[in-house]
């Protein structure tokens, strides 16, 4: 009796409503046959688990069952006013020199995107197109079965509407960075479910920037995104993700990355927007001698909740990984960092290090730092550390004695603190972009 009760209990109003929402829109979602079946299975997987809550270990600090009370209808196509608001914000969000691929309210916007003069070795199409007309190979990449283990990924699989599918062929070294920009433009609250795919061929080289922004007037929306990446052997991917969503928005995003032999993956995530957000990255070493740097910064104030969860899977020998994470928290901001590194029994000579630090600017701010190392191989170099503290008063006084007002003195020290993560970005241009985003946050702080 108790068991039966508990089982019913896992299905909250929210997840029930999500199921209904799916039933309402499934006819409009791209893909038939195998894709439609995968959606159905994913929805069932989601319904079995429901929204993750604090008793689910991986989601302990981000209880969606409490936080995500309301299910929002799937975003409608932007009207003219929304489209012009999106175009306006695009001006400031677009990184100069990069190729922009723009998703407005979860749907690819060709008029705002740049698909002209594609470099040799670069192919781009929409997720909708790939799901409707793509071959089995692409579909398999978009729907790897293991993804359904996480309920929010399952939900994304069930509902994914659009996104971009980018393929870089073997040996292609792209000079121009690619920027995927997610713009929320709707004046009424809505949900969007996007998924994108990036395949970096062997010996290829590319830079990917992801930006999440809100057009003026966008209201309490929910962005659900997934990015599936494969980095070929001897390939290189530089990746920066900037989440600057509206302050009343939800953003639940997942990245799946497989890194091939001798490949180099350098990634940086900055979370500064959103009322509640979770960025979870699952990075798997698929080949030996690969190098991965996953760095990140959470900059939160007000009542923002930002969760960065990284899972590094050293599945093969001779892999190297570095994680540098920083959180800066003001007011009642709440940052979660979970960094899990698993070193499988075969993964000898793994070299993995992780360091996370949180800076609290207010007595009411909260940081949960949870580094986790699970080592099953015996010949490895692994280490991790975590600290939480306030700004050093003696440094602040020194700066103020030199004429810097309190906020400016704090800003300089905060930038230095955040810089410890930003400096791990290898590419100079990307580093500047990250610094710019951190400065935007500091400037908005006043």
């Amino acid at each position, binding site marked *: 009796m108790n068991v039966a009760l508990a089982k019913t209990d896992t299905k909250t109003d929210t997840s029930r409503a999500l199921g209904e929402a799916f039933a309402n829109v499934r006819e409009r979602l791209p893909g038939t046959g195998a894709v439609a079946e995968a959606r159905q299975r994913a929805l069932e997987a989601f319904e079995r688990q429901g929204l993750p809550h604090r008793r689910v270990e991986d989601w302990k600090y981000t209880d969606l069952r409490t936080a995500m009370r309301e299910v929002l209808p799937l975003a409608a196509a932007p009207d003219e006013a929304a489209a012009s608001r999106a175009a306006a914000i695009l001006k400031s969000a677009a990184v100069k020199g990069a190729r922009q691929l723009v998703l407005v309210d979860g749907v690819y916007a060709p008029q705002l995107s740049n698909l002209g003069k594609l470099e040799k070795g670069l192919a781009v199409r929409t997720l909708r197109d790939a799901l409707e007309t793509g071959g089995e190979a692409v579909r398999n990449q978009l729907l790897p079965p293991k993804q359904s283990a996480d309920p929010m990924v399952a939900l994304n699989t069930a509902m994914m509407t659009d996104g971009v599918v980018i393929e870089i062929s073997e040996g292609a070294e792209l000079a121009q960075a690619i920027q995927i920009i997610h713009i929320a433009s709707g004046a009424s609250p809505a949900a969007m479910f996007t998924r994108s795919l990036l395949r970096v061929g062997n010996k290829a080289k590319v830079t990917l920037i992801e930006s999440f922004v809100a057009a003026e007037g966008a209201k309490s929306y929910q962005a659900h995104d997934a990015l599936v990446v494969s980095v070929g052997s001897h390939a290189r991917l530089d990746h920066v993700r900037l989440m600057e969503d509206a302050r009343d928005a939800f953003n639940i995003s997942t990245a799946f990355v497989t890194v091939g032999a001798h490949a180099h993956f350098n990634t940086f995530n900055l979370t500064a927007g959103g009322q509640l957000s979770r960025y979870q990255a699952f990075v798997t070493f698929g080949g030996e001698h690969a190098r991965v740097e996953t760095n990140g910064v959470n900059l939160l104030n007000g009542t923002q909740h930002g969760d960065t969860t990284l899972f590094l899977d050293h599945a093969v020998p001779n892999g190297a990984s570095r994680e540098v994470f920083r959180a800066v928290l003001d007011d009642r901001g709440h940052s979660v960092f979970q960094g899990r590194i698993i070193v499988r029994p075969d993964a000898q000579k793994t070299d993995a290090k992780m360091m996370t630090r949180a800076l609290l600017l207010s007595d009411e701010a909260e940081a949960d730092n949870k580094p986790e190392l699970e080592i099953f191989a015996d010949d490895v170099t692994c280490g991790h550390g975590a600290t939480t503290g306030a700004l*050093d*008063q*003696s*440094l602040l*006084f*020194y*700066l*103020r*004695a*030199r*004429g*810097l*007002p*309190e906020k*400016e*003195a704090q800003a*300089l*020290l905060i*930038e*230095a*603190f955040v*810089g*410890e993560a930003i400096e791990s970005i290898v590419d100079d241009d990307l580093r500047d972009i990250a610094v710019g985003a951190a400065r935007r946050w500091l400037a908005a702080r006043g």
Partner: protein
Amino acid sequence: MNALLEVKNLQVRVEEREILHGLTLTVNPGEVHAIMGPNGSGKSTLSHVIAGKAGYEVTGGEVLYKGEDLLEMDPNERAAKGVFLAFQYPVEIPGVATMNFLHTALNAQRKARGEKEILTPDFLKKVREVAKSLNIPQDMLKRGVNVGFSGGEKKRNEILQMALFEPALCILDEMDSGLDIDALRVAADGVNALRSKDRAMVVITHYQRLLNYIVPDFVHVMSKGRVVKSGGKELALELEKSGYAQFDDAA
């Protein structure tokens, strides 16, 4: 003529302990005052209170700077108005590039005074000139503020800032601590180059040695939170011979 700095009967507590018990000191533009005294006499407390460091409770007396109540001002306001403290132990600030720090600080001061910001080329030129005169190599300026600097380098960096910000009142807190004789000479030359009829200096030191290089107009002896004796530069030499013990009873 208005005094630049007037400290009148200043009483200061740190936590529950009174450190300054009624200190009086008047400094006019162009003067160099030395404040000498044994450890624990309250010399550094005085410098911290003038610069505006938190944690000191003023329980009596006042500090006027150009006739204004200095104690009412934020530390950055004091700096913008021309008060400069050369720290005994300049802090290391990793991640904050020295040039960026200097430029930001200088412009913050100028902005507070309602002056135009200094542009990068003019700023760079100015820093280079000053750095050269103080024997500060360019690569030192490329590092984080004071990061990995030797004791002498840190003190030279303080004097570089003094030269750059052009304050009216300089408080030099134990500038000689940790310096060998050559480093001391370079630092003292830097300070002497900044002496002018409009600028006053208060040189706080435990040892007479520094005063061979920075020759003061006035010497004050502090003991147990008060100035117990004042005189000319010859007072420093007298102290060198007889020590501070003679003042223990006077306090």
